[in-house]
């Protein structure tokens, strides 16, 4: 999928990572400034705690710096790699500190704040992030909650069924239906990109 607009300015993310793999400090500075707000923002959206989020964001970007040589572009985008590292570290931090994560409804609400009004315009500009935001906030609330719990907080269907007080089959069904709808948005964008 396409990167955020900031990735379209200056060197590509892949070029910066290649430079970081060779120990290029300048590339690291540009990369950190490009990603620090997204990394901190994801951790903060999950914890609502600035101190925990700074610890997580620092550790995530430090790992990117150290592991830049092993990044494999065939397995996914740089954005996906960086944010997955951040997500996993945040989940670990929440478990270690036995902290209460933000409510999944709040995560979706935060995503909706910067939502654009015209999804078609997002498609034309190849802005996947806004398109997914749009798709996410228009999911039925129970599907939205299940998808966020699974995709962001790493909760299994069984855990979701227990915390939400719903049958396991219902939890699986909500996850499946929600993700299939998001896929339609993401793949629709890919189709537009491939036509260009």
């Amino acid at each position, binding site marked *: *999928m396409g990167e*955020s607009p900031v990735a379209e300015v200056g060197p590509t993310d892949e070029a910066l990572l290649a430079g970081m793999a060779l120990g290029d*400090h300048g590339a*690291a*500075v540009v990369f*950190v*400034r490009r990603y*620090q*707000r*997204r990394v*901190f*923002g*994801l951790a*903060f*959206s*999950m914890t*609502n*705690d*600035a*101190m925990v*989020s*700074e610890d997580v*964001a*620092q550790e995530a*970007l*430090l790992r990117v*710096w150290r592991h830049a040589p092993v990044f494999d572009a065939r397995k*996914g*985008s740089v*954005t*996906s790699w960086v*944010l*997955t590292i951040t997500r996993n570290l945040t989940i670990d931090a929440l478990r270690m500190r036995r902290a209460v994560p933000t409510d999944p409804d709040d*995560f979706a*609400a*935060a*995503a909706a*704040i*910067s939502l654009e009004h015209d999804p078609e315009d997002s498609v034309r500009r190849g802005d*996947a*992030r806004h398109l*997914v*935001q749009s798709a*996410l906030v228009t999911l039925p609330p129970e599907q939205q909650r299940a*998808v966020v719990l*699974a*995709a*962001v907080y*790493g*909760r*299994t*269907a069984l855990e979701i069924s227990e915390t939400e007080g719903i049958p396991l089959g219902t939890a*699986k069904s909500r*996850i*499946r239906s929600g*993700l299939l709808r*998001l*896929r339609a948005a*993401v*793949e629709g964008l890919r189709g537009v990109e491939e036509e260009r």
Partner: protein
Amino acid sequence: MNTGPRARRCADVGEVVPELALGILTGRARSDALAHVEQCTRCTEELEQLSRAADAVVQVAPEVEPPLGFEVRLFGRMGVSGPATRRLHPRRVLAVLAAAAAVVALGVGLGVGLSGGPGPTTSAPAPHHPGPLVSVADLSEHGEHVGQVFTYGGPTPWVFMTLSDSAARGRVTCEVVTTGGAVRTVGTFVARSGYGAWGAPLPVAPQDVRVAEVVASDGSVVARARLG
């Protein structure tokens, strides 16, 4: 229509592919599903598409400006020779404002501030589209930079404040001093371990605000910003 064993297996695995894509399928169910996917082009494509959708969910989190000093601390740990300090570049001002506006709007929906503490004590709704920025000033504490103050104009004047690595602890009060010398209390908020972000309607015109102060519960001024 193909209803052979392989097609039936695809249908069975298709039921759990979303969980596989999300990385939440575990144990035997996961290994069985993966064993089939590795030999099935159709299910491989299905998994790839759903994985892209699953990855996209974390990407919708809003951007939030890290606390001041974040870069310096990070570059120190990385051993990278970044700048020792950073001045607020115009683009960074816009980023801070975007984050501030997001948090202000979020505070209404969620009832929280950036620090996780209570939101504004006032009950007036926050503007989802703040008016024009009137002023930006650094909050200082014994000469040290510990945050920023932003004032907005428009129909609903607004003040937004960030604190980072300050001495503020617990409930503090935001006061503004006007050009005429009047002191007005804007509201109270909670600073956690020196960090916090908060916004509230301004009781005076933003052009009339000369000083903004963060005041501790004992009345001492923790941090001050000169806007005029």
